[in-house]
């Protein structure tokens, strides 16, 4: 099944269209001017990072529930892609913060949350790599992923109360009309790409797990010893 290659190609197409539209055809952002155009990359990354973590959470529940390596490999794919999106998000946030606030980093709740999430979910992958027994490794990955995901809303609430500067959450409705189509198209582009990459990583991981887990044939039954009369 190569459906995810098609999905990835569709993602590139959507992302290209959305970005070209946003960069060259949509009007500049009202408050921030051309700098505001980073929103076509940043906002889709943010939505999809959270969405992919949600997929990872579902896969983690599936992993713990069924003990199947297919769930486990999806879990690994989603967490890896989630962390990559998360790191991108952090850099985009810093790039946007410099011209807007004059500093690369600000302890704004969402920027802070993304940084914490990188540490949380990278921990899942690091911990996974320290275990070699397949059963133990599967459980550890599932458990740490569940715990990390449950923490996402708590971290977000805590950092919001702690300090608030960022604009309100962006959704296509809060963004003015000529911007919302390129934003939507870009968001689907990132989503398709993220799922395609996760699927590819899941495929590789599944192949690896199966290679590892292929039981060697049982040794041939040896004949019983004859003691003979003494």
């Amino acid at each position: 099944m190569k459906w995810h290659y098609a999905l990835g190609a569709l993602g590139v197409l959507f992302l290209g269209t959305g970005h070209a539209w946003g960069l060259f055809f949509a009007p500049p952002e009202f408050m921030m001017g051309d700098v505001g155009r980073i929103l076509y990359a940043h906002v889709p990354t943010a939505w999809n990072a959270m969405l992919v973590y949600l997929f990872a959470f579902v896969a983690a529940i599936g992993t713990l529930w069924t003990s199947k390596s297919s769930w486990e490999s999806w879990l690994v794919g989603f967490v890896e892609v989630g962390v990559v999106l998360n790191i991108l998000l952090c850099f985009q946030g810093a790039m946007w913060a410099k011209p807007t606030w004059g500093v690369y980093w600000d302890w704004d709740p969402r920027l802070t949350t993304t940084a914490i999430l990188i540490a949380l979910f990278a921990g899942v992958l690091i911990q996974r790599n320290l275990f070699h027994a397949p059963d133990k490794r599967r459980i550890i990955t599932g458990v740490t992923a569940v715990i990390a995901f449950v923490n996402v809303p708590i971290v977000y609430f805590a950092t919001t109360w702690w300090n608030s500067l960022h604009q309100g959450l962006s959704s296509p409705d809060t963004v003015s009309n000529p911007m919302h189509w390129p934003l939507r198209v870009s968001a689907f582009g990132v989503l398709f790409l993220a799922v395609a990459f996760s699927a590819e990583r899941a495929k590789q991981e599944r192949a690896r797990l199966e290679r590892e887990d292929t039981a060697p044939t049982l040794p041939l039954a040896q004949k019983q010893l004859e003691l003979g009369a003494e």
Partner: protein
Amino acid sequence: MPESTSAERNIPHWLIQTWQILVKDLVLGWRTRAKVVAMVVFAGTMLLLFSFAIGPNNTLLAKHAAGYVWLSALLSSTLLLSQSFQVEGESGALEGLLLLPVDPRAIFYGKALANWVVLSLLTGLVLVGGFFLFSVEIQAHPLRFVSILLLGSAGISAPGTLYSALTARAQAQQLMLPVLLFPLVIPCMLAAVKATGFLIQGDPMDQGGSWTMLLICFNLIYWALGGVLFGKVVDE
């Protein structure tokens, strides 16, 4: 010839087993109290180090005292938590408990409660020491400090106990426990620091209440989740 008695044996309810594991861990903690003393000394040293980082400025130190106190407590808590499953693994005791059989929930809650007791004592000492060192004048009622102290320690202890079990067999336990635990307890630490800070500096807008609520929610979530997931973690 005595009839086999184990068939009609009544394994105690898991809540009773929880209590017995808690008592066992506290007795063990008391026997190895030198380790607890080492933790206290470590936390005290951390307090000193923070004041060296800031400089001899009593106003600044007093202003940030809550943060230093909780960070010291968190850093030294990993010494306690990494020990928690070493005593179980050292001579195969954990496997022995599971084969008795002891309910995995009883092992988790018993050990998490014991860690909570020790951590609360430690945090209490650090709090008193920090206030003394940083010349903090206490405005609020001491009982309010105690409740924040108990909630904050509980918030470290539940996920900490789970992660102690998770990392007990990793080659790099001393490294992995903080790597996993610290990002996880950030909301809990934030809330504890904020709530303690409001108690120190006064809270005209009554913001301490919402931080206390956050602490309570964090605790509810991770104490519940720990009981559910621990069985999976120790399952062979």
